[in-house]
C-alpha cells in the first residue's frame, strides 16, 4: 500500500476514561473484528487487564478503513499503557506513531498522567487530536472539559471533538479527523533497515515476538537481523501484523507497524526501545531514545511454604521471560527463609506481578513492604546500591546515603491545595511551583523522595482530595538525606523483613507508630511478645503483645467431638497462613502492611 495511505496513531487516556471502548468502536467501524466476535475491549488481552480495566502491554492492531468514494487507509492503532510505572514504554509507543488521540472523560477532566503523556506526545512531534469522551453521561460537562483540554494544548475549544465511545456517537467522524490530522509516515524503503521495538512478548512455542515500527528500509521473512542495543542476532522466522489476530505477511515496509518472530528465547535480549537492523547491511546508528529501565522499587518475595521455593523460582523465571523490567535475585531472610528480592518499575508493576504469581501459578507468597533502592557511599570511598534495608551497612562505615527523588506533578481542584501542600511537607517534599490550568484545576509541582510514594503517598493524596487529585512523576536521580536504618525486634530478635530506612529526625515517631501497628497486626500468642524498634542498637520504641488468655471453650454436646476437631483444624490451618519467626507466628498481612502507617498513626 502507498505509504501516504498509512496512519499510525495511539490513544492517550487515563484509566477508565474509555480508551478500550473507543478502540472497540474503531475495530467495529473498520470491520476488523466481526461484531458477533467482538469480545468487549479486544485489545486488553490478558484476563488480569480486563479485571483491572487497565492495559499493561502495548499492542498494535491494523485496520483497513474505506470511507465511501475513497480507496481506503491502513490504520495502525498502537495501544499504550496508562500508568506512570510504564512511562518509558509509553514514550516508545508514542514515537512509533505520528498522531495521538488525547481522550479525556467529560465528567472527570484532565488527569495528571494524561497531561504527562500528552506532553510526551507533543515533544515527540505527534499531531494531537483532542477528544472529550462520555458526552452521553448526564454528569458530562463537555464545554468545560473542552476548554480545559484546549487550554492545555493552546488550541481553540472548537477543535475539540466530542464522542461517546459507548454509544458510538461521533466516533466515525473522529476516525476521519484522525486520518486528516495525522501525517503519513515518512521514510526511505531503500535505506538500511531500522525498526523500533516498542514492545515484546514471549510465546512459549515461538520465542520472543517483537512489536516493531519500521522507520527505514523493510523487514522480510528469512532476513538476518540484529538488535543494536543488546547485540542479539537472529533470523526473522515470520513477519506480520495483528488484525486483530496474528497475520503473517511477506514484508513490513518503512512506515508499517507489525510484529516479527525472531526465534530469540529471552525477552531481555529484545528490549523496548531497541533498534532492529539488518545483519548484512546494517544502519550506521540506532534510533534515538533507548534506555534500559532500572527497577526503582524492591520487595522480598517469599513462599509461604518453604517447600515451594523452587516453584516460585520457576514462576519468576517464566514471568520475566515476558517482562524484561522484572528483576529477581535470590536472597535469604532470617525471618522468612529463602526467597527473592524482586525489582519493579513501581507499585502497580509489583501488584501485577503478585497477582500473576498467585493467579497463573497458584503460589501463596509473603511479600514484604516495598522499598526503594538506596545509593550508599562508604567512608572508604566505595559505593553500593542497597536494595534491601536490612543490608544497609553499619552507620559507622557509611559516609552518605542517597535516595531516589522524583519530580511530581499533581492535578487537583483548587479547594484541596492547602491539604495537599501539607501532605507534601509531611512527606519531605519540596514544593516547586503551581499553575491554574482552568478555574477548576490546578497543576502543582514538587520534588518528592520516591520512598514516600512507595509508602502511601498516593493513598493519602486520594483520601485528602476526596479522590480527585491525580499524580504523575518522573525520576530525577539520587539526593542525599539524613537517613538511618531502623530495625524491628520481635521477641528480642531482629526481623530483617521489617527493617526500614527512615529520616533520622522522624525515627522515633516512626518507630513508635510501627511497633504499635505491629502490635495490632500480630495476634496474641501463647506468651508475651515484646515488639521493639531500634536505631543503631538503641531501642526507640517498645510495645508488648500480651499473651492470649482464653480460647473458645464451647460445650461438647452429646459426644460431638467433630465440632471440637473442626475448631482445632481451623486453628491449625490458621497457623499455616502464618510465618513462624522464631517462636512467634506472624500473619502474612503484617509483612505487607507494617509500613503503611497513616498520618495519624505517625503522630503528625
Amino acid at each position, binding site marked *: 500500500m502507498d505509504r501516504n495511505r498509512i496512519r499510525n496513531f495511539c490513544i492517550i487516556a487515563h484509566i477508565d476514561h474509555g480508551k478500550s471502548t473507543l478502540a472497540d468502536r474503531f475495530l467495529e467501524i473498520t470491520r476488523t473484528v466481526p461484531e458477533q466476535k467482538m469480545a468487549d475491549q479486544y485489545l486488553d488481552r490478558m484476563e488480569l487487564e480486563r479485571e483491572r480495566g487497565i492495559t499493561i502491554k502495548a499492542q498494535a492492531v491494523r485496520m483497513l478503513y474505506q470511507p465511501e468514494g475513497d480507496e481506503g487507509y491502513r490504520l495502525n492503532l498502537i495501544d499504550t499503557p496508562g500508568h506512570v510505572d510504564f512511562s518509558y514504554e509509553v514514550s516508545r509507543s508514542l514515537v512509533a506513531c505520528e498522531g495521538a488521540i488525547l481522550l479525556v472523560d467529560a465528567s472527570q477532566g484532565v488527569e495528571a498522567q494524561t497531561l504527562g503523556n500528552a506532553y510526551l506526545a507533543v515533544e515527540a512531534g505527534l499531531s494531537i487530536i483532542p477528544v472529550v469522551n462520555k458526552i452521553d453521561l448526564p454528569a458530562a460537562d463537555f464545554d468545560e472539559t473542552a476548554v480545559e483540554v484546549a487550554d492545555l494544548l493552546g488550541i481553540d475549544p472548537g477543535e475539540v471533538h466530542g464522542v461517546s465511545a459507548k454509544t458510538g456517537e461521533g466516533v466515525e467522524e473522529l476516525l476521519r479527523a484522525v486520518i486528516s490530522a495525522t501525517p503519513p509516515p515518512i521514510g526511505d524503503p531503500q535505506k538500511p533497515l531500522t525498526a523500533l521495538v516498542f514492545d515484546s512478548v514471549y510465546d512459549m512455542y515461538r520465542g520472543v515476538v517483537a512489536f516493531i515500527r519500521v522507520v527505514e528500509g523493510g523487514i522480510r521473512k528469512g532476513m538476518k537481523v540484529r538488535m543494536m542495543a543488546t547485540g542479539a542476532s537472529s533470523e526473522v522466522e515470520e513477519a506480520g501484523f495483528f488484525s486483530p489476530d496474528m497475520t503473517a505477511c511477506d514484508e513490513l515496509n518503512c512506515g508499517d507497524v507489525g510484529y516479527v518472530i525472531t526465534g530469540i528465547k529471552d525477552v531481555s535480549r529484545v528490549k523496548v526501545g531497541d533498534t532492529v537492523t539488518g545483519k548484512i547491511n546494517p544502519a550506521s546508528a540506532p534510533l534515538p531514545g533507548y534506555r534500559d529501565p532500572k527497577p526503582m522499587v524492591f520487595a522480598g518475595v517469599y513462599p509461604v511454604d518453604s517447600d515451594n521455593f523452587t516453584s516460585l523460582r520457576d514462576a519468576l523465571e517464566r514471568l520475566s521471560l515476558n517482562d524484561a523490567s522484572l528483576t529477581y535475585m535470590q536472597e535469604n531472610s532470617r525471618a522468612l527463609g529463602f526467597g527473592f528480592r524482586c525489582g519493579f518499575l513501581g507499585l502497580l508493576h509489583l501488584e501485577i506481578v503478585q497477582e500473576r504469581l498467585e493467579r497463573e501459578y497458584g503460589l501463596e507468597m509473603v511479600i514484604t513492604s516495598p522499598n526503594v533502592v538506596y545509593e550508599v557511599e562508604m567512608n572508604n570511598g566505595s559505593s553500593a546500591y542497597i536494595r534491601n534495608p536490612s543490608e544497609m551497612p553499619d552507620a559507622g562505615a557509611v559516609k552518605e546515603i542517597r535516595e531516589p527523588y522524583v519530580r511530581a506533578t499533581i492535578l487537583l481542584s483548587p479547594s484541596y491545595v492547602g491539604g495537599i501542600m501539607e501532605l507534601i511537607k509531611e512527606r519531605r517534599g519540596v514544593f516547586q511551583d503551581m499553575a491554574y490550568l482552568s478555574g477548576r484545576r490546578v497543576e502543582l509541582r514538587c520534588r518528592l523522595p520516591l520512598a514516600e510514594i512507595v509508602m502511601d503517598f498516593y493513598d493519602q493524596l486520594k483520601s485528602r482530595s476526596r479522590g480527585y487529585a491525580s499524580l504523575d512523576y518522573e525520576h530525577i536521580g539520587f539526593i542525599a538525606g539524613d537517613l538511618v536504618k531502623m530495625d524491628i525486634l520481635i521477641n528480642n530478635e531482629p526481623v530483617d523483613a521489617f527493617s526500614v530506612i527512615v529520616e533520622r529526625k522522624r525515627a522515633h515517631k516512626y518507630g513508635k507508630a510501627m511497633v504499635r501497628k505491629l502490635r495490632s497486626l500480630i495476634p496474641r500468642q501463647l506468651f508475651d511478645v515484646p515488639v521493639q524498634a531500634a536505631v543503631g542498637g538503641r531501642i526507640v520504641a517498645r510495645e508488648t503483645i500480651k499473651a492470649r488468655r482464653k480460647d473458645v*471453650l464451647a460445650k461438647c454436646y452429646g459426644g460431638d467431638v467433630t465440632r471440637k476437631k473442626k475448631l482445632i483444624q481451623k486453628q491449625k490451618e490458621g497457623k499455616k497462613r502464618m510465618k513462624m519467626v522464631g517462636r512467634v507466628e506472624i500473619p502474612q498481612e503484617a509483612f505487607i502492611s507494617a509500613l503503611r502507617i497513616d498520618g495519624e498513626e505517625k503522630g503528625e
Partner: protein
Amino acid sequence: MRLYIHWPFCLSRCFYCDFTSQVTSAGVMRRYLEAVSRELVKWSALLLAERKVLRSIYLGGGTPSILKGDEIASLLVEVDGAFAMLSGLEVTVEVNPATWTRRDFEDAAEAGVNRFSIGVQSLDDRTLDLLGRAHNASEARSAVYEARRLRDASISVDLMYALPGDDGGVFERTLGDILELQPHHISLYALTLERGVPMYGKVRSGEIILPEEDVAADQYLLAIKKLRASGYRQYEISNFAMPGHECLHNLGYWRREEYLGVGASAHSLLGRLRLSNPDSLLMYIRRVEENFIAASVVETLSREGELEEEIMLGLRMSGGIRESLLREASVRLAPLQEAGLVTRERGRVALTPLGMLVSNAVISELLCA
C-alpha cells in the same frame, strides 16, 4: 458401650443456642419418641451381644425434662429391652429448672436415673433474661434443692461464665450461691456465640457487651480456685466433681470409649467409625421410619487420626496424656511449659489451668505436624 439419647425439643430457644432443638407440638414429640424406639431396636439387631452391654446412659438435649418422670421411665424400659444394662450403671438426665416438680425427680429416680444434670447457668435473673432461659433464679435453686433431696443420686449443675455485662461480680455471686446448695458435680462453660444465634447480632450491634478476654479468663481461674477450696476436683477442662462423682459417661468421650448416639444429630463412635445422625428432625424420622440406619459415617479414623484424637481429647482431662504419644512434637513442650501452660510429670503431659484456657491453641500447637 455407652448410650446417648438426644431429645431435640425445648420449651423455648435460648438466645445463645445453636444446637439441634426446637419448640414443637406433642404430636411431633410422640412421633420422635417412636423413631427413637425403632432406632434402638434397629441397633440392637445390628450389634453383637457384647457391644450391647451398657455402662452408662445419658439423656441430653435440647430439654429431655420436657418428658415427665414417668415418660423417662418408659423410655428406659425400651432401652432395657433392646440392650443389656450393666448393674449400677450411670444414668444421667439433663433437667431444665423450669420443667420438673418433686414428683418428676422421684419418678425418674425410681426408674433408675441416678444422675441429674441441672442447667442452672446463672443465679442472676437479669442475666437469665438476657440468655433467654425459660427459668428464673429461684426456680433454678428449687430444682437443685429437689434433686439434692433424692437419696443415692449424683447432682450436677451447669454454670456459665463470660456472661454479658459481668465484670466478675455476678458470676462470683452465682458460684457462691451454688456452692451452698452442695451439688456433687459442676460443669462450667464459657458463653460462646456462633454466628446466627439471636445474641450474636446483639453483640455485634453493641446492644450486649461481652466481657473482655482477660475478665473471662479471670472468672475461670477464680472458679477453679473456689471449687478446689470447696473440695471439688477438676477432672476435665469444664468439669469439677466431688470425689467419686465424676461423670463416667462424659469421661468415656474423652477416653475414646465406644458410644452409640440415638436421636436426631446424635453422634457415635464405633470402632474406627465416627458416625452422626441427621441434624434435621424430619430427615432423621424419615430415615428411621423407612427402616434405614439413621447414622452416616463422618469419618473413618486412621491410626494417625486415632492418635490425634487421643492427644486432643486426652489433654482435656486433668490427668493429661502420656508424653510418648506426642513423639517428635514433644520438643514443642518446653516453651509451653516455660509459659506455664503445661506440666510434665512422670512421663505425662497435662494442661495447667492457664493452659486449659488456651487449650485449642496448645493442642493445635502440639498436633501441627
